[in-house]
């Protein structure tokens, strides 16, 4: 499967932070400070914070973004060997030989994440100013957003797995708070709980992986593990890799832990954009790429990653085809696109840079489209059913144009950012395994189909608006982030000029020794474009040329019904986990009630009954006491005699 396992794995060797890099901790501290001020400062200055909280909450991530840009530019000015910068803040805890510091690591990989998280995150904050304008709990919303960004920054900046776990859990907490932000809606509260619980499953994997790493290497720091990772046995590495994959599945909504992502659409739309583009779901991809020194030594774990990713990219794409809820269609699309990233990450050295590349471009166009969807919902009185849209391109021209840029990017229209990144992944996949490559190619076609369907249903076709809906363009504060993101969606491909991103990430993930695609790259590209064209054409002829009913038709094929039901993801969970779990708990309760309680209570009853019998001996008659004394004495004497004469 993996041809590159023998290529050298780069060792993480950070140099001490100096100059502007000594401010690295501020990148995390700024949004964290924002979260603390907005969430804990409520009782002190409620009036001022309610009035200005959204501006404060936006200023901190923007500051963090500016700092990230400065750091990035400074790093570009340095030589390649000095680009990994470590900052050890303080000893977090130390018990026995387990010594964990709150250490930060800034390298090309985390630098790109920093720019994505703070950049796209800031744009989403700006957008939220408009989107959440009339929400009475806006201050709290921005506090949670800041917490989300801070946790994600902690995740990508930590220099060891324990710090990463801190950020990992922080992201989980913030997503729970934000998905359930409108907690008065039962569905939102349930979705938040679902996301939290499913993420816990993945977290078990991560904590076990960390424990296993510590047992094996005696440390959790990336630098120390990467230096000696070759010394561990392959089976250990495979176990760690599979556990890390489980963790990544939970956070990145990969099959089989994907069920929370579609329900997570219950959160406010900027939250969906944040979860899908800048934070949260990208964490799994980051984890796999960051742990390259483990996966490179565990080919079986890499195969598992590829299999999971391939299943997910088709699974998500099929779901995206059948959803009428615009946000859920986009959520299915995210699953599918994250599947592409995981696929690239599972392909090893050849794929890591493209996983990150696709992650960045996806961050741009998916944030763009989610915010665009929010803008459409804003115009349609928060209706999310695409069957109630239609012909919106005139009503919301800016949203339409920006959304179209995201659309062209995601389907891989030549020249747009998604074209470059997805094409590279398909090419790498084909070079590695024909079947996986063809699945990726098929996924591209399905992506083109469902995105075209979404575009047609929303912006083209005929008007199917509900009564009393008067679509209007969103305010500037919402459209400007859309325009910026649309520009990034178009231009994201520049990162690939001269294989810049491959060389840039080489110090972290290594550089592949050889690369021989089965077909010439240009043929693969043409093939991909052709498949995309077919997907678009199918969508056009099946939807664009027909009248779209306002109600979803019920006499549909089995496949459509399955896709509408998230390919029975919930039913599978219910059948395989929830129902057996309930039965197990029911059995244990019965066992406890009748077995354990029975033994304890039966014991007590027996003692009590026996006491009742013994009580009768105490009858008060002196002569019976005298008899027992005599009998006892005789027994003692006989025993003594028996001992003496035996």
């Amino acid at each position, binding site marked *: 499967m993996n041809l590159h396992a023998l290529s050298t794995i780069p060792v993480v060797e950070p140099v001490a932070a100096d100059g502007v890099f000594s401010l690295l901790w501020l990148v995390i501290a700024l949004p964290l400070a924002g979260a603390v001020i907005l969430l804990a400062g409520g009782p002190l200055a409620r009036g001022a914070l309610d009035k200005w909280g959204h501006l404060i909450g936006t200023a901190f991530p923007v500051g963090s973004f500016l700092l990230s840009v400065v750091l990035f530019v400074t790093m570009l000015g340095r030589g390649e060997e000095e680009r990994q910068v470590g900052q050890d803040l303080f000893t977090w805890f130390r018990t026995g030989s387990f010594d964990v510091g709150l250490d930060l690591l800034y390298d090309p990989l985390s630098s790109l994440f920093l720019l994505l998280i703070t950049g796209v995150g800031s744009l989403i904050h700006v957008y939220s100013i408009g989107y959440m304008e009339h929400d009475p709990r806006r201050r709290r919303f921005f506090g949670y957003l800041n917490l989300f960004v801070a946790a994600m920054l902690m995740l990508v900046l930590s220099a060891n797995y324990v710090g990463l776990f801190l950020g990992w859990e922080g992201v989980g907490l913030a997503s729970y708070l934000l998905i359930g932000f409108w907690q008065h809606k039962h569905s939102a509260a349930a979705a938040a709980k679902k996301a939290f619980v499913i993420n816990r499953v993945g977290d078990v994997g991560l904590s076990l992986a960390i424990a296993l790493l510590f047992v094996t290497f005696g440390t959790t720091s990336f630098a120390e593990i990467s230096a000696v990772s070759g010394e561990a046995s392959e089976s250990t590495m495979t176990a760690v890799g599979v556990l890390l994959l489980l963790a990544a599945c939970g956070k990145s909504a990969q099959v089989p832990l994907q069920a929370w992502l579609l329900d997570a659409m219950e959160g406010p739309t900027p939250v969906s954009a944040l979860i899908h583009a800048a934070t949260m779901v990208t964490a799994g991809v980051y984890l796999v790429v960051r742990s390259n020194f483990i996966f490179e030594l565990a080919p079986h774990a890499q195969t598992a990653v590829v299999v999971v990713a391939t299943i997910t990219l088709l699974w998500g794409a099929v779901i995206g085809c059948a959803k009428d809820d615009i946000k859920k269609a986009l959520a299915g699309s995210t699953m599918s696109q994250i599947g592409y990233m995981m696929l690239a990450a599972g392909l090893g050295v050849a794929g890591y840079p493209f996983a990150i590349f696709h992650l960045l471009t996806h961050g741009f166009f998916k944030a763009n489209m989610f915010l665009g969807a929010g803008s459409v919902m804003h115009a349609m009185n928060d209706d999310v059913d695409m069957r109630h849209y239609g012909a919106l391109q005139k009503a919301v021209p800016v949203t339409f144009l920006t959304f179209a840029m995201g659309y062209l990017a995601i389907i891989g229209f030549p020249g747009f950012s998604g074209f470059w990144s997805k094409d590279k992944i398909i090419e790498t996949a084909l070079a590695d395994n024909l079947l996986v490559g063809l699945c990726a190619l098929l996924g591209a076609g399905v992506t083109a189909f469902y995105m075209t369907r979404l575009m047609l249903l929303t912006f083209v076709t005929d008007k199917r608006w509900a009564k009393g809906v008067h679509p209007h363009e969103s305010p500037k504060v919402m459209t400007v982030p859309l325009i910026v993101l649309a520009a990034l969606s178009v231009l994201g491909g520049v990162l690939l000029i001269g294989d810049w991103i491959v060389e840039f990430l080489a110090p972290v993930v290594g550089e592949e020794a050889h690369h021989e695609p089965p077909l010439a790259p240009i043929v693969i590209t043409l093939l991909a474009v052709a498949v995309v064209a077919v997907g678009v054409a199918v969508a056009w002829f099946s939807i664009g040329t027909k009248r779209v009913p306002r109600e979803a038709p019920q006499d549909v094929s089995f496949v459509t019904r399955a896709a509408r039901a998230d390919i029975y993801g919930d039913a599978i969970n219910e059948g395989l986990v929830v129902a057996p779990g309930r039965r197990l708990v029911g059995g244990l309760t019965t066992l406890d009630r009748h077995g354990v309680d029975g033994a304890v209570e039966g014991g007590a009853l027996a003692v009590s009954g026996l006491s009742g019998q013994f009580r009768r001996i105490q*009858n*008060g*008659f*002196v*002569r019976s006491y*005298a*008899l027992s004394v*005599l009998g006892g004495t005789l027994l003692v004497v006989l025993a003594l005699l028996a001992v003496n004469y035996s």
Partner: protein
Amino acid sequence: MTQYVVLSAILFSIGSIGVLTRRNAIVVFMCVELMLNACNLALVAFAKQHGNLDGQVAAFFVMVVAAAEVVVGLAIIMTIFRTRRSASVDDASLLKY
């Protein structure tokens, strides 16, 4: 020698049977004394046999204890008889009344 020990055993048996079978507290009491004195007899006999004074000293102690016991026991029997007009030990099967 054997006769002394046999006599002591017979006396002890008579005493214990009396304690177990008679109801009158005074008779029970007398039987107890009989048992004690059977023990004394055995002690003195063994002391004579072994040629030391340990058994005789023990017999004195038994006598002292028996005397003290008689004082307390008779007092109790007297009190019981006064309250219940009966000296039967079976009537005194409850701690109160």
